[in-house]
């Protein structure tokens, strides 16, 4: 029938841009770096397939140490962001009066939209040797000479938590907002102490938000580039820096692609593990907002 | 000449048959309702008439011409949607003008017709208003005007009163009936509310599980239901289960599960002695009093409680076999002697007692 044909045609018209986009710009490029990572250079313009790049990665401690370091610090940052963000989200969603609730939420959202670069730059202005904090400390007389607060791991962590904490707060607020206060009342009414109520009612209820926030934050941290480089300096040993280095500085695409695949595989594994442990699904947690 | 005919219309979704061999004929200018519980297929039937679903088999004719091949925007059947579907991005005037614009009417024509239809529904000054500024009843009328300005052959209404509160719903029933007279157009009205169907319609089709149980005037449905479903769905009834003892002259003597013997008018229903049967009696057919005539059923019991509701008040009577029966009483009459605890003698005519074969249980 005519209408059926029109239906099929319009479905085709809608599918085409989607498929072009997802294939040409997402799926094939990802397969492309997997392909390149499996390529060994045996001579000028001569390649064979093999796992040499991965072998090189395993054999060079600096490489896998960097990946491990990136992973450990990303997990630490995720945990800290949850710790720092949860009380704030809880306040915004459950305690603050309605009017200030919206205002506080917007106050959280606005820095979310400010570029990483600007935020990192702000930290540099604050923390470097001639920066505000060093100057202020000298003025009060706590320290004698200027101190360098940049280029150490603690600063990198503080800066990273700063960059990502808002991505933790936003999903937490939207989940906690959905929680009915009567649940808490019932919990208290049934004789639960404050800690029990928090552990048995609030945390399980907020779980989808916690998982969504942690996934986003972890991926953002592991994939971040600016903050570790600018705040950690040349010795920050961040894995994305290695990728950039291989690709742009050394022009060693095979090894760079290998690192890219490893980073993606590794972060995906951590996310998968997280989803598995908490029983959540990717599409529902990430696509909600 | 019929405005709308459906012939043996069937719609299947996979293994599920939503509409099962339905036929109907609606004469011009009448108010026709399809009454049925939710999920009975009435919405699917209406969507087929409007062209949003294709029937699996059967035919739909509008003014005698089959419309099966024509898409929804080419059929001269207009529809008032359940939630009205007024366009929130347009004001009232633009909403009403929408169909005319689609037809390519001239500006002057549009202005004139929109003004005229607003005049007819009694809202001459709302053209510039936004939809959300209207009251529930006004929205209702605008939704009808938006269709009527196109002078459709048939106007379909899909439970448009469902979203209104009770008071407004009562008022809109009357208003819809008046509007239908005024426009003199065939209305096909879908509802699950029997009082809406009875109050407004010239004819009602009672639908259940994809089929029409009975088509008739409201009076016919009320007084002469042809199936147990119609008897139970249209109006209130007292209901008993029993076994047929004897049948003579279209009257069946039935012994209820409580042990009472009731004589019922079994008319066309195919009952024979030994069958189990369902008996229906309307509360307003039962009267208090000890009179015993040849053609009356009688029962005795005690008044259990009174359900006051103005002219629709009821008494709950616990009969000797421990069952409760609703009886209509005149609640407005303050000298009413009936009090809880009073002994009660009930009687009603054989002719007002309907019985049908009981469904397999």
């Amino acid at each position, binding site marked *: 029938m005519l209408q059926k044909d029109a239906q099929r045609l319009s479905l085709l018209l809608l599918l085409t841009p989607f498929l072009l*986009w997802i294939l040409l710009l997402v799926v094939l490029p990802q397969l492309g770096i997997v392909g390149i990572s499996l390529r060994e250079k045996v001579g000028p313009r001569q390649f064979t397939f093999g796992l040499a790049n991965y072998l090189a990665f395993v054999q060079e401690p600096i490489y896998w140490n960097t990946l491990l370091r990136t992973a450990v610090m990303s997990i630490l940052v995720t945990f800290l962001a949850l710790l720092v963000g949860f009380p704030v989200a809880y*306040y915004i969603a459950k305690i603050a009066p309605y009017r200030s609730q919206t205002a506080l939420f917007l106050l959280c959202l*606005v820095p979310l939209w*400010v570029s990483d670069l*600007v935020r990192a730059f702000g930290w540099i202005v604050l923390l470097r040797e001639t920066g505000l904090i060093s100057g*202020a400390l000298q003025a009060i007389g706590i320290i004698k000479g200027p101190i360098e607060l940049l280029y150490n791991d603690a600063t990198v962590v503080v800066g990273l938590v700063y960059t990502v904490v808002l991505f933790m707060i936003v999903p937490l607020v939207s989940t906690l907002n959905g929680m009915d206060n009567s649940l808490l009342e019932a919990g208290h009414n049934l004789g639960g102490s404050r800690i029990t109520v928090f552990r048995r009612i609030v945390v399980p209820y907020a779980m989808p938000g916690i998982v969504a926030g942690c996934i986003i934050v972890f991926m953002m941290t592991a994939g971040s580039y600016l903050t570790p480089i600018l705040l950690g300096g040349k010795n920050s040993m961040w894995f994305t820096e290695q990728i950039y280095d291989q690709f742009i500085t050394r022009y060693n695409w095979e090894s760079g692609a290998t690192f890219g695949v490893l980073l993606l595989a590794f972060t995906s594994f951590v996310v998968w593990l997280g989803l598995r442990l908490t029983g959540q699904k990717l599409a529902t947690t990430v696509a909600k907002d | 000449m019929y405005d709308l005919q459906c012939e043996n219309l069937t719609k299947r979704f996979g293994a599920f048959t939503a509409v099962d061999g339905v036929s109907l004929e609606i004469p011009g200018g009448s108010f026709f309702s399809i009454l049925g519980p939710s999920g009975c297929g009435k919405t699917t039937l209406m969507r087929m008439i409007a062209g949003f679903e294709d029937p699996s088999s059967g035919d739909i004719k509008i003014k005698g011409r089959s419309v099966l091949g024509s898409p929804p*925007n080419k059929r001269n059947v207009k529809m008032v949607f359940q939630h009205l579907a007024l366009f929130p991005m347009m004001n009232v005037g633009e909403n009403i003008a929408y169909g005319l614009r689609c037809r390519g009417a001239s500006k002057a024509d549009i202005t004139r017709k929109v003004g005229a239809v607003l005049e007819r529904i009694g809202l001459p000054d709302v053209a510039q208003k936004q939809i959300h500024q209207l009251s529930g009843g006004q929205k209702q009328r605008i939704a009808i005007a938006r269709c009527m300005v196109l002078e459709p052959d048939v106007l379909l209404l899909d439970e448009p009163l469902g979203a209104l509160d009770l008071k407004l719903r009562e008022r809109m029933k009357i208003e819809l009936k008046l509007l239908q007279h005024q426009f003199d157009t065939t209305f096909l009205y879908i509802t699950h509310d029997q009082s809406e169907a009875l109050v407004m319609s010239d004819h009602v089709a009672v639908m259940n599980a994809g089929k029409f149980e009975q088509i008739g005037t409201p009076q016919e449905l009320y007084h002469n239901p042809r199936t147990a479903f119609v008897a139970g769905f249209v109006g209130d009834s007292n209901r008993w289960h029993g076994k047929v003892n004897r049948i003579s002259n279209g009257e069946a003597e039935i012994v209820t599960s409580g042990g009472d013997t009731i004589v019922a008018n079994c008319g066309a229903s195919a009952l024979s002695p030994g069958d189990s049967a369902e008996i229906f009696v309307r509360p307003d057919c039962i009267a208090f009093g000890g009179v015993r005539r040849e053609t009356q059923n009688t029962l005795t019991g005690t008044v259990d409680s009174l359900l006051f509701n103005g002219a629709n008040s009821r008494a709950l009577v616990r009969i000797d076999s421990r069952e409760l029966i609703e009886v209509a009483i005149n609640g407005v009459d303050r000298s009413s002697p009936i009090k809880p605890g009073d002994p009660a003698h009930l009687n009603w005519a054989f002719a007002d007692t309907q019985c049908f074969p009981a469904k397999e249980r």
Partner: protein
Amino acid sequence: MNVAALQSRAFRLIYKGYLVAFFAYLAAPLLAAGVFAFNDSQFPALPWNGFTLDWFFSDTEPKIGMFHDRRLMRGLQTSLYVGIIVSAMAVAVGTCNAFLFERRDFPFKSALFVLLVIPLVIPGVIIGISVLVFASMIANGVEQALGQDWSILRPGLTLVILGQFSFLTTITSLVIAARLRKFDISLEEAALNLGASRPRVLATVTLPFLAPALTAAFLVAFLVSFENFNTTLMLVGSDAPLTITMYDRMVKVGSTPVLNAVSLFLMVGSGILALLSVVLQRDKAPPGSAT
């Protein structure tokens, strides 16, 4: 009494204190970056030498304001150019995707939906290198097969646009799909019933309903594109967008107050656009109900 609130007074005080500290933490680097744009000094540091707007408007050495800094202005232009093109593309494809996933059924729909979401969780650097690698593969293939050099597939603005487009489309699709989900399909049926053709229904009913989401999606995409660094860094050629220019300046020249000026400019700009998109995405309360 609000049971969610905490009862002990001391605890409440600590909690309030924590919140204040948190918002101070949020504001501190932004304030530091912003305030020193107005310091009349060669360095974005104490001491405070008095208020000046030179870092925005001065056109004389050594204090060249951002609006007279040729390279920064070129970067700004490039960013605007990239942002507008990429957002328009992402909104167009995102609209198609929204209709595809909200309205249609087709084989492997849920698997394809996961694919749609995935670009959000791929690190930007990896999106950058994957697009770079894939484009080069095609370019090399074309060069070998046809002997032509498709420079369009070498690092440059086209690749920047494609790279950003690849993940911005996910964002726009989700924003538009969320709005489309709220659309009452009977509005379309009503329009059809009143005699409108399919294209007319789309133009007069569906798209006007989607308009706020389309605008919001455009703004969000523009913001993210404008501020994007990781993906862009891998794909950029000779024409660098503002963030890359600013980063170059930071690394090569060190921080000067002109960077503070750019930072403030970015903050104000993105703040305004972000607020606008939030306002647009919020369901409008009927104007009549407010007063």
